[in-house]
């Protein structure tokens, strides 16, 4: 299967750009913001201000490029490592940070943001995007659903069921697999014996596309095509974005146990931000000032988001019980009373 590429690692176009330069600069700005967020979260976790954090460094092109191809009202169903994609699609930083502090309210984006809270279980959420896309079609809307998942997730039975249902019912669903080389400590070649993940699409009679996941433009182009196919009623597509997780699996992981630094260094050279910046700089559309400004703006946005998240008092016991049903049933009222009796402070 051929690897689709538009911008090579040196920042040279090898095919026509699907975007004009100002749009590329805009998306590159998103990548900078995403990386700023990602590093900040790792730092906050080290300070004990966030729970375990899963860095996406190295995967910014795959996430920003594909997410930018969606229409604002499209559904997005992504995973714990997809904050960049979610944010590009409208999920506020404050919700992302809140989730990472360990607060359910992180999962509640503002009205109009059609992004589900990130899936922590691996595999199950792809089916939700099948149902969401189908629901849109049944209601006569032309929005589609995109779902983000990793190479490891393709081993779960639910990946199979999702791909099959999407193809059988021709739902408007775009499956975005970020093959980042690893599922915690398991390398991609021990995850499945197929040469690519993209070829798995054929098992479902679905088109499969292999794209350079560190190439912002190729990711944008492939997702644009897949989204158009879905929106036209021509069914789902599987995209495999070949990329790499530069950081640990999460802040609790020690990748030194299972992979070589040399491999990481090799992929570091293919940094997805660097090649876009080279491209833009060569065209005079980016420079150190813009870079500094973008980083500053992202930092400021994030500081504000963190401050807002931390200012929110934790859910009290009553709110805990109130989350479960539309109307609180009697047994939860009873339980709330038991808790109030024994621990009146909650």
């Amino acid at each position: 299967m051929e690897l689709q590429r538009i911008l090579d690692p040196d920042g040279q176009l090898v095919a026509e750009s699907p975007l004009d330069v100002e749009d590329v600069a805009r998306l590159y700005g998103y990548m900078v913001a995403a990386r700023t967020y990602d590093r900040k979260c790792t730092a906050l976790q080290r300070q004990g201000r966030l729970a375990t954090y899963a860095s996406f460094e190295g995967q910014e092109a795959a996430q920003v490029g594909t997410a930018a191809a969606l229409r604002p009202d499209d559904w997005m169903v992504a995973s714990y490592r997809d904050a960049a994609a979610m944010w590009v699609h409208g999920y506020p930083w404050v919700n992302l940070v809140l989730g990472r502090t360990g607060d359910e309210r992180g999962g509640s984006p503002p009205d109009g943001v059609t992004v589900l809270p990130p899936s922590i279980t691996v595999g199950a959420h792809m089916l939700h995007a099948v149902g969401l896309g189908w629901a849109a079609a049944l209601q006569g809307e032309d929005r589609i659903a995109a779902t983000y998942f990793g190479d490891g997730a393709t081993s779960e039975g639910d990946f199979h069921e999702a791909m099959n249902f999407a193809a059988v019912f021709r739902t408007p669903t775009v499956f975005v697999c970020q093959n980042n080389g690893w599922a915690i400590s398991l390398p991609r070649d021990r995850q499945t014996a197929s040469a690519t993940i993209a070829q798995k699409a054929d098992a479902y009679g679905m088109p499969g596309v292999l794209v350079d996941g560190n190439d912002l433009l190729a990711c944008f182009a492939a997702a644009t095509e897949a989204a158009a196919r879905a929106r036209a009623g021509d069914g789902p597509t599987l995209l495999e974005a070949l990329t790499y997780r530069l950081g640990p699996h999460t802040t609790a992981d020690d990748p030194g146990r299972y992979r070589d630094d040399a491999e990481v260094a090799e992929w570091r050279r293919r940094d997805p931000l660097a090649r876009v910046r080279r491209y833009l700089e060569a065209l005079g559309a980016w420079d150190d000032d813009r870079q500094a400004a973008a980083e500053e703006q992202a930092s400021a946005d994030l500081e504000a988001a963190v401050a807002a998240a931390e200012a929110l008092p934790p859910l009290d016991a009553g709110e805990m019980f109130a989350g479960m049903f539309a109307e609180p049933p009697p047994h939860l009222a009873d339980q709330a009373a038991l808790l109030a009796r024994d621990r009146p402070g909650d």
Partner: protein
Amino acid sequence: MAELNVAQALNAALDTALAADPKVMLLGEDVGRAGGVFRVTDGLAAKHGEARVVDTPVAESGIVGTAFGLAIGGMRPVVEIQFLGFAYPAFDQIVSHVSRIRNRSRHRFTAPLVVRVPYGGGIGAAEHHSESTEAIFAHTPGLKVVVPSRPYDAKGLLLAAITDPDPVVFFEPIRSYRAVREEVPDDAYEVPIGEAAVEVDGSDVTIVAYGAAMRDARAAVAALSDDGVAAELVDLRTLVPLDAATVLGSVHKTGRVVIVQEGHRTAGFAAEVAALIAERALYSLAAPVERVTGWDTVVPLRRAEHHYIPDAARIVAAARRTLEA
């Protein structure tokens, strides 16, 4: 009004719901042209169209996971799983996703869907076709768990489940599908989720049951009555949220209780009812609580199944023990 059995009453409820709300759709294996293995969806695809009564591939996790997405996206899916034993492949979707989206999104996204599951033994079915593991769903926060025992309730509870804003697992007693008949209104009506019914008033002993076991419980109440024992019969109808007040009220009155459940004994739903009583009605008890349950064995196949299913004889014997205590 027509005299219907449970399967027909459920069919009527689905027909009513499909007609009333264009967002309602049915999904499941063989629910379309075949009308479902128990014919509960008979005729509905022909009447409402195959786009609304959808035959799916054989993949239960796929069915529930897709329905979950449909529900978040604005539809009102009603899923049929052919037998409770085939809901286990969908367990993760139900427990990790369907039951949680409201809480994890703080009411921003919700999944108002119904999972219909034929359950229970007593018809000599094949392996995996006789399960009564409702307790594991009752143990899952965020689900409502409904178990009708008779046609009137079956229709009214299913209609209530379909309009409920939260996910409902709806257990249909297989051996009552065709065995219990009664008058059922033609119109739409709801039986509220969360209300038990005192089906027979009595003062000597309380018998608590639900679903398929209600038939045996009714027979036991009749047998006891022939012997001059006035048993009060409570049909739980909903396991979650449980109508504890009705159960406890009855036990306060009679001081004696037999809890009937076809599921396995250990950590079954009868244990929950017994625990509630031991916590909140202890001083009313004149005799130890009795549980009449299925055993901690796989439900036996046809030739030996009768050892397993709690029957009227066992209920009567338990009731007598409470009276002799």
